[in-house]
């Protein structure tokens, strides 16, 4: 022992540790805390900040007037790269500690003030991952009590001790070798952890599951592709084999209405993606939003955005819930901007469609018929419809209620689809064709839509199609990022760009989150291998 340490030594008796304070382990985050959403702005306890998924913070310290003084306060380096994709996480924060998942199933607890980590977790992944090797991403934790919940690229659901990162339980969602993986941030509600599954480009069958947070036992499962004879099976050929590999992934987060006790979740493409000859029919519940009873997982209502999809236009976009005045009467709505290029508003209690209108120049369809079905003009075989990544995608949008604006990242692209009968090989994707994209004829844009009409109110154009998500704050700001790596702030009223910071890597899949720490508002964005925190420069 050196002299400095010797001087520092204080003899600690057993008695000093046996105080009640010492024995009292913190119980952490409760369901009621999550229910409160962002009303306590020091917290961000679920993927989008609250169950509504509006990703709209009440914080107002950073304003259109002072945002030019926004500077990075720290950068966290993950040490893990995401081949071909992005660092897609939304950090959670509680009691000054950020809980962050990374690519390749890394995870950390990070001090929100300094960016230094308390612990790191890394899953020892098998070397024969299927979908998980092509998209080695993760979008975040769910949390309850002193437990964190995280899904993995080998299609497991883990519970970690939030204090140490130790695994508390580990259960298999599905066999990854078939083509399954999991990448979303679990949705934690009262007594349940809700997750979905990736792998719809393979011969798989999607589902939404609820698990017991304490034990990891499964409470219910909703299969997104019906079994033989079940409701919805009439929209498929009468062939159990086709149903069993019908796709319908559920790989992005859903939202929750605690009063109606309904979960809203998007469902992905039917499989094969581009080849539909062996699956005539609408192919429910692919490319739909489903409203599920949170207690039982039973289907309350659904709406299919893209019947008999031939373009890989998964409907795994964030469903955004709001209570708004709809043309003179109060309505509980769910809004969703879809990969097919339409923006939809639905009554979330009944599923009644209130609005469906294009927000890009898609030539697939321009209007819906009297039965709320799209009038398809071009299925993609005649050129120039949105590419398979779609007119928007899983990058979270934001709803700014006071302005009545739905703000999203739009992608204007031009692709031709050439379907081809696929071979089904275990663990290999079955897209069923190829796609030709005109790279000289595409761009991205941040767009603000009037939710009453779907009309474009303003836009800010990006050089290329972009996967960055959106955050808004009650001070009138929009935070978004682009494919060229700029993290930006805009005036929510008119889309004027007010500030930008070059992160050095495209912002892909991630949206910013914000929280207050010691009286100072911070905004965080993940990009490349870094998570960076920003705050107003102190005098």
């Amino acid at each position, binding site marked *: *022992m050196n002299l400095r*340490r*010797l*001087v*520092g*030594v*204080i*003899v*600690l*008796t*057993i008695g*000093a*540790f046996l105080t009640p*304070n*010492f*024995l*009292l*382990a*913190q119980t952490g985050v409760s369901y009621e805390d999550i229910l409160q959403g962002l009303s306590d702005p020091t917290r961000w306890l679920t993927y989008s900040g609250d169950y509504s998924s509006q990703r709209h913070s009440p914080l107002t310290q950073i304003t259109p007037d002072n945002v030019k003084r926004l500077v990075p306060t720290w950068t966290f380096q993950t*040490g*893990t*790269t*995401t*081949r071909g994709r992005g660092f897609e996480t939304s950090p959670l924060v509680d*009691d*000054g*500690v950020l809980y962050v998942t990374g*690519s*390749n199933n*890394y995870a950390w*607890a990070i*001090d929100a*003030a*300094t960016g*230094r*980590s*308390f*612990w790191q*977790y*890394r*899953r*020892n992944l098998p*070397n*024969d991952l299927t979908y998980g090797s092509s998209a*080695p991403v993760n979008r975040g934790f769910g949390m309850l009590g*002193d437990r964190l919940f995280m899904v993995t690229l080998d299609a497991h659901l*883990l*519970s970690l*001790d939030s*204090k*140490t990162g*130790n*695994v*508390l*339980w*580990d259960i298999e969602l599905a066999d990854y*070798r078939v083509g399954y993986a999991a990448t979303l941030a679990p949705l934690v509600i009262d007594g349940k952890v809700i997750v979905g599954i990736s792998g719809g480009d393979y011969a798989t069958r999607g589902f939404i599951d609820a698990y017991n947070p304490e034990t990891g036992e499964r409470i219910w499962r909703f299969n997104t592709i019906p079994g033989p004879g079940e409701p919805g099976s009439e929209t498929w050929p009468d062939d159990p084999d086709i149903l069993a590999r019908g796709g319908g992934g559920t790989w992005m987060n859903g939202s929750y209405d605690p009063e109606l006790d309904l979960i809203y979740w998007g469902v992905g493409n039917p499989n094969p993606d581009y080849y539909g000859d062996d699956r005539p029919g609408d192919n429910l519940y692919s490319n739909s939003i489903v409203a599920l009873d949170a207690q039982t997982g039973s289907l309350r209502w659904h709406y299919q955005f893209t019947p008999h999809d031939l373009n890989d236009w998964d409907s795994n976009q964030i469903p955004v819930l709001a209570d708004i005045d709809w043309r003179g009467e109060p309505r509980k709505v769910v809004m969703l901007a879809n990969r097919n290029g339409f923006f939809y508003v639905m009554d979330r209690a009944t599923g009644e469609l209130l609005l469906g209108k294009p927000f890009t120049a898609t030539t697939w369809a321009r209007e819906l018929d009297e039965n709320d079905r799209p009038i398809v003009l071009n299925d993609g075989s005649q050129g120039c419809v949105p590419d398979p990544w779609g007119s928007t995608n899983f990058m979270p949008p934001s709803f700014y209620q006071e302005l009545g604006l739905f703000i999203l990242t739009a992608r204007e692209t031009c692709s031709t689809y050439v379907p081809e009968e696929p071979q089904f090989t275990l*663990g290999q994707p079955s897209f069923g064709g190829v796609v030709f994209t005109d790279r000289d004829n595409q761009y991205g844009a941040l767009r603000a839509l009037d939710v009453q009409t779907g009309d474009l109110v303003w836009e800010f154009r990006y050089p290329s199609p972009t996967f960055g998500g959106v955050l808004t704050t009650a001070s009138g700001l929009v935070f978004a990022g682009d494919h060229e790596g700029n993290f930006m702030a805009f005036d929510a009223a008119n889309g004027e760009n007010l500030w930008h910071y070059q992160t050095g890597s495209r912002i892909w899949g991630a949206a910013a989150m914000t929280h207050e720490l010691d009286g100072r508002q911070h905004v965080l964005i993940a990009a490349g291998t870094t998570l960076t925190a920003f705050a107003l420069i102190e005098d």
Partner: protein
Amino acid sequence: MRKYNKLLQKASIKLSLMVLGIVAGSSVNQTSMAQIVNPYESNASAIRAGGVLFRARCATCHGADAKGIEAPDLTLLWALNVTNDALVFQTIREGVSGSIMPSTSAPDTEIWTIVAYLKSISTVAVSDNASGDSVRGQQLFESNCSSCHRVNGKGGSLGPDLSRIGAIRDRGMLTTSVRTPSASIGSSYRPVTLIDGSGQRIIGLKKSEDAFSIQVMDSSQRLRAFNKQDLQQLSEESISLMPEWGPEEISDRDLDDLLRYLGTLRGANSD
């Protein structure tokens, strides 16, 4: 040496075949890989050579003692019973995709000496013939230890999770940990005493530190961080937060029961 080279050649061919097998996704081949023998197994001079190579090439991330800094603790590889010589060889050869662990084109001989070295310092399992009453040991554990130590999801987080301690620490090491815990303190459990700006004294475990800040788990098991300039005092302690359980606190017989119980903790490796 010729003998070793021959063996090595044989092992390499076998390994290549097995690697192909694993890529094909058969679990049978995992078992077959376990049968590949390191040509330098227990060879003292090869182990020394492997140690030199390890310290030069691996210690930056894995630590000079292989117990892990930024990268995992390698002394637990064999004890956890999830690996074997060939898999360790393969991991060194190919690296870990998506992490900073690189692949290497080093000759097979060098890799095998590193494998031999790592195996030589690998922690061994508790012997199965331990005496003591594990049921009583569990009761002792739950009333004295579980406020700080977690087992299978139950207990505190101040001390290490002991769910599989029986697989990674032998009886002698566990006895030392109970009787004289300060003799060896893990890198994430170094005790610190802080006095903040308001004069409040905080006792905790250092989890991370840079020139300006320190991150700790305090004694109420809360993760907290402090700016060093705001602290009146920051002292690193050499006495573990784990109390010393001498013969007066826990008799030899009780200790025997406790160790028997700890030896049974070999929880499924899930990470």
